[in-house]
């Protein structure tokens, strides 16, 4: 009967009905938001990626010197052939790639050892002071990643790359060997001491979620300890290990600071430093080819991880509530382990920071005697004898300008990231099950697989010229904000989704039935209930943006310099002490920020990592 009724309705009336239904669909808040988010992400992620690829397969005006016949904008495989074949390919692509791989794998192994053992000690033993260790273990990750590299140079610098030698030579009287001063070994050590946090967090979460009963069940059945470890514990921790592996690997592949400080002076280039080098030399297409290689590498490893661990496990929560957990008795070894861990923490935190601080009080670098101590680098007036006539850092208007840039960048980025997070969370959670929401969710994930330095390169490609309604942003402060927000999208959408999940959908529906419109629902129900998520997302983004280098290094100019890039600038200019002061300021800001987070919101680093 109904089907007859439908055919009797005139076409025009059916058209009105359909358009009314479509309009209603279109004005649903989750649909509107999803569409807006799609447009934003399209501009922030998809178009830049497209531009990046386009630049590498077309002739650029900079190529005219090499090939005067080239038609600018015409298709060509020139850049790819050049970068991937012959001696050029070896120098510019394969060797740096090999170096990046060496460092990434070395870092992964060393951080697995450090993070894994610390996690086991903290979660599964009766070692004293576990709580303290648990808190200290994440501190290195909160500091800028290249802090340790700077400290390393204070200690082990030799004359290989010029400049005054470090404390080691001053005390021992002998120059440290080249392999200890520069190159892969120090880079790996410094990276591992920063990135072991991933393994620590992943493995301790996994260990905590294993019910000891599982192991005890094995024990009751008469299995030996080794067999239990092999057959029960390790398989259960394996996903966490793989996740830690991938996270560390892809981060190190894209890291810039450490390799730039400890590798570049001796021409030990990795892909990240090579990208910057090519850009500085004006070979934009070359740099972009390298960036694409890096992105492909990261994508392959991450998809491999998902194949092995299961979709997106590495990215989502692995944790879970702690069950009954039996603790291995360390007995006599208690003190040994405890001492070892404390010494380790000292070596990773106190000693490097102490060295950095000490170095900043030297008048002439390389002379560590007390008579050489000074406050010149901190509060000295302009003096042509020191620091090329620049005043001490605390009197230097340029440093204040840079710090203000950093703070502004972090504030804007945190605000937009947190806001975007709530909106993305709403669009994804409310639209759950629809194709649109799924698309938003998947697009939001893309920046995750693009290494920081490559993301910066992508943005050069995008905003060098005016595109559609968007002005050319290159060289502007806005560009830094845009790139930082874009890179944070995966994390913000994760935390937004989890914040929204905690607000049951009935709470909004109750308001809807009670007569509230969209805006009233957002203002009176959703925002108040997700506000703590907003705040902790804000603070965590603030910290990570403050110390982010790889992402912005390619995009800063003289006027948009931030603290992180300023350290690099000082170090590259051979003014290590100034760089050390700036990095200490950064450490101070980030560590204080982290303490604030813990105090006010109960948010943790885990949330900030999207775990």
């Amino acid at each position, binding site marked *: 009967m109904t089907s007859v009724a439908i055919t009797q309705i005139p076409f025009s009336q059916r058209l009105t009905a359909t358009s*009314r239904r479509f309009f209603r669909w279109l004005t649903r808040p989750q649909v509107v938001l999803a569409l807006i988010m799609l447009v934003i992400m399209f501009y922030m992620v998809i178009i830049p990626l497209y531009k990046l690829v386009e630049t590498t397969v077309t002739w650029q005006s900079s190529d005219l010197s090499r090939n005067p016949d080239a038609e600018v904008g015409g298709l060509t495989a020139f850049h790819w052939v050049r970068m991937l074949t012959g001696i050029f390919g070896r120098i510019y692509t394969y060797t740096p790639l090999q170096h990046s791989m060496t460092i990434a794998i070395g870092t992964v192994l060393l951080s697995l050892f450090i993070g894994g053992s610390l996690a086991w000690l903290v979660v599964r033993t009766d070692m004293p002071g576990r709580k303290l260790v648990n808190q200290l273990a994440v501190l290195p990750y909160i500091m800028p990643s290249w802090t340790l590299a700077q400290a390393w140079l204070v200690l082990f610098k030799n004359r290989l790359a010029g400049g005054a030698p470090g404390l080691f030579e001053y005390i021992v009287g002998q120059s440290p060997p080249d392999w200890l001063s520069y190159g892969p070994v120090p880079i790996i050590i410094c990276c591992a001491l920063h990135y072991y946090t991933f393994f620590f967090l992943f493995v301790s979460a996994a260990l905590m979620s294993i019910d000891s009963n599982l192991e005890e069940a094995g024990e009751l059945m008469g299995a030996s300890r080794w067999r239990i470890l092999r057959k029960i514990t390790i398989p259960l921790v394996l996903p966490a290990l793989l996740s830690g592996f991938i996270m560390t690997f892809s981060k190190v592949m894209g890291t810039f600071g450490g390799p730039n400080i400890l590798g570049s002076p001796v021409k030990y280039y990795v892909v990240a430093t090579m990208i910057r080098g090519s850009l500085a030399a004006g070979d934009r297409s070359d740099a972009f080819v390298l960036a694409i290689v890096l992105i492909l590498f990261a994508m392959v490893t991450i998809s491999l991880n998902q194949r092995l661990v299961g979709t997106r496990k590495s990215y989502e929560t692995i944790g879970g509530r702690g069950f009954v957990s039996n603790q291995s008795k360390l007995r006599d070894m208690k003190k040994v382990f405890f001492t070892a861990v404390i010494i380790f923490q000292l070596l990773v935190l106190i000693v490097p920071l102490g060295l950095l601080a000490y170095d900043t009080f030297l008048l002439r670098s390389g002379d560590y005697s007390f008579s050489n101590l000074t406050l010149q680098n901190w509060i000295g007036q302009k003096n042509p004898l020191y620091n090329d006539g620049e005043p001490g850092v605390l009197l230097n208007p340029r440093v204040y300008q840079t710090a203000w840039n950093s703070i502004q960048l972090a504030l804007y980025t945190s605000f937009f990231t947190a806001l975007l997070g709530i909106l993305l969370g709403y669009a994804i959670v409310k639209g759950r099950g629809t194709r649109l929401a799924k698309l938003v969710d998947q697009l939001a994930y893309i920046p995750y697989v693009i290494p920081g330095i490559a993301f910066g390169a992508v943005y050069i490609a995008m905003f060098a010229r005016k595109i559609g309604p968007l002005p050319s942003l290159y060289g502007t402060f806005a560009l830094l904000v845009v790139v930082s927000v874009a890179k944070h999208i995966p994390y913000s959408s994760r935390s937004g989704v989890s914040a929204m999940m905690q607000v049951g959908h009935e709470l909004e529906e109750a308001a809807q039935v009670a007569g509230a*419109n969209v805006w009233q629902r957002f203002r009176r129900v959703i925002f108040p209930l997700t506000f703590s998520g907003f705040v902790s997302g804000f603070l965590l983004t603030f910290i990570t943006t403050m110390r982010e280098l790889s992402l912005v290094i390619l995009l800063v100019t003289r006027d948009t310099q931030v603290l992180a890039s300023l350290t690099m600038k000082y170090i590259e200019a051979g003014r290590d002490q100034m760089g050390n002061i700036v990095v200490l300021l950064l450490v101070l800001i980030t560590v204080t920020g982290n303490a604030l987070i813990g105090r006010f919101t109960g948010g943790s680093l885990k949330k900030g990592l999207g775990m």
Partner: protein
Amino acid sequence: MGTTIRINNLTKKFGDVLALDHVSLDIDPGTFVTLLGPSGCGKTTLLRCVAGLEEPDGGEIYIGDMLIFSHEKGISLPSSKRDLGLVFQNYALWPHMKVDKNITFALEIQKMPKAEMEKRVKESLKEVQMEGYEDRYPREMSGGQQQRIALARMLAYRPKVFLMDEPLSNLDARLRMDMRAELKRLHHMSGATTIYVTHDQVEALTMSTKIAIMKEGVVQQFDTPDKIYHFPINLFVADFIGNPKVNLLEGEVRGKNAVDLGTFKIGVDTFRADGKVVVGIRPEDITILDHPEPEAVEFNAYSVLPSGADSTIVARLGTTELTIREMGISKLRMDDKIWLKFDAKTLNLYHKDSGNLILS
């Protein structure tokens, strides 16, 4: 104050699953209608469609004379314009607002004067017997108290239609009993047309003016509790309603007045039926005798389960098993010989193939 609700051929799909399949219900003003069925039968979906929280894929809904939804005309009023109130299973009180703010939320949106709002808060709290709780946060109250506040929140803005989605299922058994009485009383006082979703048949039978029993998106029977209980329209409804469950026995019609159940014959009024049928006998419609009588069938008392006010007896004869409900504590012992007497007037006959009731 009540209003009619007319639901016409309502259809709703979730992907390939048909959650509502051409559902039609005519609800009279001021009645208390229960949507009853197993989980996944579409009862909550139907309620959410009426509330405007889901958009159906076909059909119409009228509240009074107002067309609030029509797929064919492309009309769907937002929830806020439908003049209805909804009570959720998990209360859905806004955790960041105190009780009074929870209650005045809707009133503020209507821009009601402050004095009037305060009056309404007092009144509605009184109606749910929660006077003096204005300053509590939801988390500072027990589940039962929260549910009362959720009710007060709905009562305060006096909607024409009350919708309730399993409001008592999160409460413990004792509290649920008390709240049933309260809810029925509230409905009686307000006279608002009420649609109430539950999977609990006792709740449905005790509170409803009419019950709509649903299965797989289709309304099986829409009738008074009395009719639903005594004349279930098909085997699904017969089996779903009643505790202990109805006895369903397969047999074949023999002559005009008997069904052959294999192990014994039962006297029925079969003038419209023939062939294979299913006989439905409510456990309380069987009389137990301790001595033989004409027409009584000898059974064995397989198990005797007294439970205070009544006792359940499981009786067996060959492969036939019957459940019988007797008032009081049964004096029978297990394996006693008993004789069962059936009343032809209380039996229902169903076609074996279609499962539908054969009307006599």
